[in-house]
């Protein structure tokens, strides 16, 4: 499994996709789409990150324990951000005096 050798062609293809997506994110930023600007920017960034993780970081051909570790790391990051926002965005909602 870890003996897998990816071809130069596949690396160059991933590289080309990353460059195109970078150009796309710069292009889209010039238009005022409101909240959709963030959705598009993060969508493109996530796609780029996935390409790097799967192909450059060889997760495609890694043992399952390694893939699980990587996925777990990003899940904890999601928990950190979602739970923190859950707190900050609802502060004051209960109108408790002295808070």
């Amino acid at each position, binding site marked *: *499994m*870890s*003996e897998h*050798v*990816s071809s*130069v062609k596949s*690396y*160059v293809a*991933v*590289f080309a996709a*990353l*460059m195109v997506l*970078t150009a796309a*994110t*710069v292009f889209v*930023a*010039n*238009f*005022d789409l409101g909240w959709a*600007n963030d959705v598009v*920017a*993060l969508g*493109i*960034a996530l796609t*780029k*990150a996935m390409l*790097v*993780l799967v*192909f*450059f*970081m*060889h997760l495609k051909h*890694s*043992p399952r*324990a*390694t893939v699980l*570790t*990587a996925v*777990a*790391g*990003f899940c*904890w*990051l999601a928990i*950190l*951000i979602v739970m*923190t*926002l859950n707190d*900050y*965005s609802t502060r004051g909602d209960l109108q408790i005096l002295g808070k």
Partner: protein
Amino acid sequence: MASTLTDSHAHVSAHVPAHVPGDPQHHRSLQHHFETLEQQKDASTLGMWLFLVTEIMFFGGLFTTYVVYRSKWPLAFMEASHSLSWKLGAFNTAVLIVSSLTMALAIWAAQVNRRKMQVGFLMLTMVLGLTFLGVKAVEYQDKFEHHHVPGPHFEWHEPLPEGVTSNQVEVFFSIYFIMTGLHAVHMICGIAVLGVLAFYAWKGRYDSTYYNPLECTGLYWHFVDIVWIFLFPLLYLLGAHVH
């Protein structure tokens, strides 16, 4: 107890030659506590990933800070972001993506036993990393000259929308300098490690049978690239459509 261990070790080594050329079970880079080279490689990539998980949380705390303050002062972040050069940011993004390609190709060169090519790609990756840092230095210098660095000398002379204060803009720059600064420190560490790897690669230590240090450093380098992939749109592109 210690003597028992020494004795048993001596017993084993008396029967098994220390190095049999061409035998993967007795490869010079195989540590004695691993059964096979593949097991050793899986263990080191798993260990590297555990370290990267701590790195995800390290940068994650800063990304969370960004999200909290930006949701609080979206207009201030737009104005501040607009003062950064998106062209330099985009250039640096491209530089890092190319460096990720050259890093992947350095590992490929080891896998196909091309020693000089391996050294060449490692050196190229270092040069691209240094290019990134050079552009970053130019950007930082510009921020210092315009007094956009947070602290007692912070000044903001651009007109701000209703309800936006220069303190809020200053918070953006605090986050900008901490995040890009921490990212740059990671780049410097990566370049130093690449230098050591290039030296050993030149000596011929890595080939298709053993290239774990290249693989682990590659994981680190690509991770630092991913951090920048998120930093670029979040820091540089917020204000592209405001003016």
